[in-house]
């Protein structure tokens, strides 16, 4: 029976890692390309979830269609945010931090006064459970796993292969040089923010189905996203995979041995120690 638990745990690790990676992806993109520490990622993620919910439950639309719509809508919101809030302050880290924090407060309050703080859940995208031997995986989690891996791969390919992607890379490495080479940095910034927010919306919608939906759903996930990106090392999208796996491994396996707060403590300590031995993260180049 212990072996059963062990096998199930292995599955859990991958599922949870997929969840974390999906959530961290948009955050990582903004961090790596724009160097913006986007605390508001959490709130945007939450907003995306709520839009998707309203479309599915309120308007009774097809889940996948509404997932797409919510992603697009939040992407547009991202454009707005970039234009109005980020662009004037790109060289000014402190202001960005304050802005993104203000965004969290405002978005949460908005949800609170409009749809209310009632905790709900988005109906399953993929109902049912798949059983492999003793291991059971819910449809939603499998969907998350597939979509998460696809998006990660897509992001990496996009950055490595496409012209825009390479431009993003250039901007992330040296803003001024990129500008001198005639790269339209404004366009890159807008695009990156939009994609980042859209990814957040996808994550939010899926998490709304896998976990649950509440104005505060982003708060803990934000910390996870930060942990992953810092572990991976700023500037490395691929590292998000490893960062996600590490966190998934910790959070999915530790509770088996020790319950409660001790889980957090040990998990965090391991992350901190890793970072002290490799200050620039696992794949980050020296800052």
């Amino acid at each position, binding site marked *: *029976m*212990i072996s*059963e*638990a062990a096998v*199930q*745990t292995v599955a*859990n690790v991958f*599922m*949870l890692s997929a*969840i974390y990676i999906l959530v961290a992806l948009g955050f990582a993109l903004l961090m790596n390309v724009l160097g913006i520490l986007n605390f508001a990622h959490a709130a945007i993620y939450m907003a995306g979830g709520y839009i998707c919910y309203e479309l599915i439950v309120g308007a009774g639309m097809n889940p996948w269609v509404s997932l797409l719509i919510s992603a697009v809508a939040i992407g547009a919101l991202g454009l707005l945010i970039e234009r109005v809030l980020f662009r004037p302050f790109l060289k000014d880290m402190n202001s960005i931090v304050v802005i993104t924090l203000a965004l969290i407060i405002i978005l*949460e*309050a908005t949800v*609170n006064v409009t749809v*209310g*703080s*009632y*905790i*709900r*859940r988005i*109906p*399953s995208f993929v*109902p*049912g*459970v798949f*059983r492999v031997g003793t291991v*059971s995986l*819910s449809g939603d989690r499998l969907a998350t796993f597939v979509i998460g891996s696809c998006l990660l791969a897509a992001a990496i390919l996009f950055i490595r292969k496409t012209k825009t992607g390479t431009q993003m890379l250039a901007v992330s490495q040296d803003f001024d040089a990129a500008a001198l080479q005639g790269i339209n940095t404004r366009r890159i910034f807008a695009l990156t923010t939009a994609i980042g927010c859209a990814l957040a919306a996808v994550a939010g919608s899926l998490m709304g189905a*896998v*976990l*649950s939906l*509440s*104005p*505060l759903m982003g708060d*803990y*996930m934000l910390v*996870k996203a930060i942990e992953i990106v810092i572990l991976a090392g700023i500037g490395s999208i691929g590292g998000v995979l490893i960062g996600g796996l590490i966190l998934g491994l910790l*959070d*999915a*396996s*530790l*509770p*088996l041995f020790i*319950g*409660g*707060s001790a*889980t*957090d403590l040990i998990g965090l300590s391991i992350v901190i120690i890793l970072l002290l031995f490799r200050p620039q993260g696992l794949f980050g180049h020296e800052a």
Partner: protein
Amino acid sequence: MKGKGLFLMLCGLCLIFLAFGRSAVVAEENVLKIGGLYCLTGFGSGAEAYVAQGSKLGEEWINENGGVTIKGKKVPVKLIIEDMKGTADGAVAAATKLAYDHKVKFVIGTVVPFMVQASGTVLEPAKVLRILLYNCAMPNEYGPKTPYAFLCQDATVEGMRASLQYLKERYPQVKTVTYIIPDDGSVPYLQKLFTARASEMGLKVAGVAKWAMTTEDYTPIITQVLATKPDSIAFANGWPQATGSMLRITREMGFKGPVFGGNYDDAYQIREIAGKENSTDFFIHNLDLDSPDMTPMIKEVTKRAKAKYGKTNGMYMMGFFPWYELKQVLEAANSTDPTVVKNTWEKMKTIDTLYGPGKMGGLKTYGINHTVCHPCPIVSLTNGEVKWVKWVDVYSP
């Protein structure tokens, strides 16, 4: 230098003026102010915002009947809600505001245990009578140290007894139970009480699992729980989010046995979070508000809730609950002095509650007989349907 000097002066002044900006609320005559402590924002607002709405129903209900009769004359009530913002600091600030700025003498509300405790540290010295909606059997939260606190719903402990009773008669084959408790500091107390209850019912405790308050994904905990091979699983003292998610995962992992919750979470909400396909062989203390088996008073509140908010759920009941008792004790005490009311309430043997006739108890369990014990409703989720089960009579000595 001039600029700075000027501005430092300014901020000093505005600091003071801000502090006095709003003069203390003038106490209107012949209105009885009742404070309501809820989290409208932040942690816990998911439930308490709706409990607060239910509380408004209570205020209206009393005032429509002309208020509470004290010394022959009808006194209307006024509910003043302060937001605890989901933090202990917020709770203390809100409580201070109610007790010293609004000068209320009675406070209802407060569900989340650590905020019950925090607000208590302000309200007890101020001799403000509190009606709690929830407790975790923590001596500091509710017990001999808190003489002005009354518990109108003994959710966790009495509730667990009710669940176990029903478990025995509905699923006689069940021999062992595993408890899942949030790791918020209440574990040692609850574990003791629950183990005792279980052995009373001739059940064996297969294990006790703790989950950190920051848990996002409950799968690992459930994996751990299922490794203990229990016949049944009990979610003690969680909130719908946790209970629903855990129920879902339990079923998805193929656990067939009965699963039950230990407190007053809304069955409909749990079903929404767990998903219809996973909501079976589950029961919890809650009301099926459409069932004919409800007390007339509940029907009344349901009507009002539908009229005011267009919908209804268990949390509205939770908010309304204390008003019904408050009216009785105020009229019994025939006074608005919290100490008098407290003494009267302590002497009362029985009290009518929203859920039917109630008795005062808790002396043995909590060391203070401020607990209102009442029939405990049980609702089950069977094949995705919310089914009313019955009232279970329980009593905390």
